């Protein structure tokens, strides 16, 4: 535990405060008839108690810990997130086949730096394979977009 844990503890303390306030606003009710805010209010209290305990333990530990992930380690997960964001936003418009193909191209070219032959082969075969599995075998209705 160390300084990083102190920051995390503060985050949970703030979250606890918010949940506590939200529970109160929802109507905690009474012990005889608990309201919709009863559980959130109780959880907000628990958050605060645990966060304070975590903060105390973090302050007792004087060790300084480095960043859990230097910038270079962030890069690939962030790039993958961008790919998933693209998939979410374009799926209804471009449809499943086009969006999936572009996603695979992006992932294997930008993230994985694979050879062109492998990129094209995998993108085409995986898109076709997933289409067959989801729509024909499992009969899931997938958007086909405005291009098809």
């Amino acid at each position: 535990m160390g300084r990083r844990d102190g920051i995390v503890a503060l985050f949970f303390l703030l979250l606890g405060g918010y949940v506590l306030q939200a529970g109160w606003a929802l109507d905690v009710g009474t012990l005889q008839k608990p309201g919709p805010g009863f559980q959130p209010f109780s959880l907000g209290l628990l958050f605060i108690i645990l966060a304070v305990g975590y903060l105390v333990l973090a302050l007792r530990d004087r060790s300084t810990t480095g960043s859990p992930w230097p910038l270079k380690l962030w890069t690939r997960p962030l790039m993958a997130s961008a790919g998933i964001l693209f998939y979410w936003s374009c799926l209804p418009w471009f449809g499943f086949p086009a969006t999936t193909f572009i996603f695979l191209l992006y992932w294997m070219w930008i993230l994985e730096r694979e050879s062109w032959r492998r990129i094209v082969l995998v993108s085409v075969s995986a898109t076709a394979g997933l289409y067959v599995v989801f729509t024909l075998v499992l009969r899931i209705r997938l958007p086909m977009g405005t291009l098809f």
Partner: protein
Amino acid sequence: MEAFQFLLQGFGLALSPVNVLFGFIGAVLGTMVGVLPGLGPAATISLLLPLTYTIGSPLTAIIMLAGIYYGAMYGGSTTSILLNIPGEAASVVTCIDGYQMAKNGRAGAALGIAAIGSFIAGTAGVIGLTFLAYPLSNFALKFGPPEYFALTLLGLLLATFLSSGPVIKGLLMVVTGLWLGCVGIDPVSGKFRFAYGILQLQDGLDFVTLAMGLFGVAEIFVNLEIKLTAELVTTRVGRIWPTLADWAESRWAVARGSVIGFFVGLLPGGGALVGSLLSYAVEKKVAREPHRFGRGAIEGVAGPESANNGAASASFIPLLTLGIPGNPSIAMIFAALLIQGVQPGPFLVVEHPDVFWGVIASMYIGNIILLVLNLPLVGLWAQLLKVPYSILAPIVVLVCAIGVFSVKNDPAEILIMLIFGLIGYILRKLQFDTGPMLLAFILGPMIERSLRQSLILSGGSFSIFAQRPISAMLLAVVAGVILLQTVVATRRREKKA
């Protein structure tokens, strides 16, 4: 005797061609998932949850998912032994001696004893499940809201204390999961909670989306940080049937591992990983030559591999009889049952005896299928390790994305999955275990409902929990567990100082 008769009826259902086929599919998928590093049984079951809608029959769906779960325990040993990378978490201990055995030219013996030990322990666990499940269900019929509150509280606490990392972090994850379970409509008053006028949140967070984000996508993000490479010891494993000498050395380890795994698997939070760790520690302790451990001791493979399969079978007991999932994989199966309109718990054996006894019978068949798959086909599974992760990862992401999309036919679920994927990734980097969060999310509504009902019944008095013998006993166990954990933690701090 009664259990035996019901079991025979279960076999009648489990041996139908469709159920055998789906059991086989589950076993194959589970073995593949266990073999391939980076994709665990929990993530795989979550991927297939939306597909259970299309299967139709709850029994068939659960047979397949259960096959994936215990199949992964079989498959996980292959990468541990050949690659020194655990295929899934519960096989991490097998790496220690299994890989050394492979380097010493004894990969076949290691793989063989792992498969046989898994079969013996898995079958023994199912026998235990057969005879314990029915009386435990009858006992659980006496449970009312106070008992369910106390039991779920105990389950969450045990899952927290047995998870990795400091207890306070586990408790924060539990409270977070309980809070996420509040999102949506309050079942009593109909008021929206934490929905902010967003349609997707007004419906409540979907378990499948949460699970795929926290386990599937987060796992991919963690693995993307490094290029997954490893040196495959050999793809030619040679003779896989253990010699008489191998069997003589490992038979008691298999027996001990089976028992340890079974009892640990009964506990919420216990599960296959804890069972295998405990078994390894016991084998090292009782060995005549403990210095052999870490250098290719066959007991170091036989015991843990038996324990993880014993635990996998036993973990179905609290799910089927009490309706309490003990680990994330079982929580997925719990969700699958709910999707099919089947409520796990003491009434399951009465309302859906076909599901109850059919699943138990299918586990006997599944263990045989897995032994057949893993012994002669182990060379084939080893070839699977040549599939580059660069191809596997985007396909897994796509399967997750389409899976969550198909739950409500709403692309917004993909965005929610990504958000929880990032949250899961950040939590892992900060060394938080997300397993207790998922369990708490599943059990949160049950805890809230049983607490509110108990307070209404008692007119607002908490003494109802002490007045009823079963809930009093369970809360006494809760207090005992907290006290024990406090003593252990204090002694650990004193030792450090």
